[in-house]
């Protein structure tokens, strides 16, 4: 059963995700236009990176109202795996499937580089079997990736073991070095780094494979 990749106007990592899934991992995938609402036959959903709706107003603020996202909320609430990468993570927070918000990087720079991450939790299916504190390398490419949330939300994330990844060296000022989080039930993962850009050995690393492989459990 395929993975659905949502395409918004302004998405630009949708094809990379499809290549990583089909070309590198042999996982069938198909595109879902943001106006679609039918998720039948899909085992998992990816919200890819990019600049949906030109990042107008705030990153993800307009995309959040796309018809397909109501279907994605239903899919997630039924336990379906949903992965939000970069702009996809921003959309998940605007949508309320994940708490907090992604704000302008502390130093204002758009940062595009490979970066070391620590696996902070192996609670969920996304990272089951991995050792906590294992280091992996994934590329980041964002101008607004500074994760922010209220203190009580941060404590909830910590208490629920919902922080999936932390930056080894914080590039953007994210609170508690957060690079990726999961929802309490663990089926929704949002992260700023791009696993799809680290699936083909020719690109210098394949650490992204573990995350995309987990889409099918």
């Amino acid at each position, binding site marked *: 059963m395929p993975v659905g990749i949502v395409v918004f106007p302004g998405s630009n990592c949708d094809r990379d995700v499809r290549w990583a899934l089909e070309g590198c991992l042999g996982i069938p995938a198909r595109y879902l236009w943001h106006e679609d609402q039918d998720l039948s036959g899909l085992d998992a959903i990816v919200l890819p990176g990019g600049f949906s709706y030109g990042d107008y*107003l705030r990153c993800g*603020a307009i995309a959040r*109202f796309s018809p397909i996202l109501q279907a994605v909320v239903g899919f997630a609430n039924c336990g379906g795996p949903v992965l939000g990468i970069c702009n996809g993570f921003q959309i998940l927070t605007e949508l309320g499937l994940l*708490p907090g918000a992604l*704000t302008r990087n*502390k*130093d*204002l720079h758009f940062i595009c580089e490979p970066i070391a991450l620590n696996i902070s939790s192996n609670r969920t299916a996304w990272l089951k079997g991995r050792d906590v504190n294992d280091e992996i390398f994934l590329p980041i490419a964002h101008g607004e990736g500074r994760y*922010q*949330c209220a203190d009580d939300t941060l404590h909830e994330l910590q208490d629920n073991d919902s922080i999936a990844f932390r930056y080894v060296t914080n590039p953007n000022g994210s609170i508690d070095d957060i690079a990726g989080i999961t929802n309490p039930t663990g089926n929704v993962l949002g992260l700023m780094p791009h696993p799809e850009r680290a699936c083909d050995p020719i690109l210098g690393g394949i650490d992204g494979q573990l995350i995309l492989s987990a889409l099918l459990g």
Partner: protein
Amino acid sequence: MPRFQAQVLVNLRPSVLDPAGEAAKSAANSLGIEGIQNLRIGKVVNLEIEAPEEAEALRRLELLSDRLLANPVIEDWTLDLNPLHTTKTA
């Protein structure tokens, strides 16, 4: 239907770092303007709305501000609403 004119100001909450504001403050220093403190950059949204009465216009715009124009996790908003007087033709 009565028309109203509104202005919504959206600002980062005081606890949220505003790196763009910090950069603008630094540029103000480069320009030789001294004494600038707490420079914070927000957004202004101007709009017009038709509604049966002012209270209803207010209700709709509060919803709009809270759900779309601002993200309450990181932003505060204020709203200014005024009747729009249009010239009536005979």
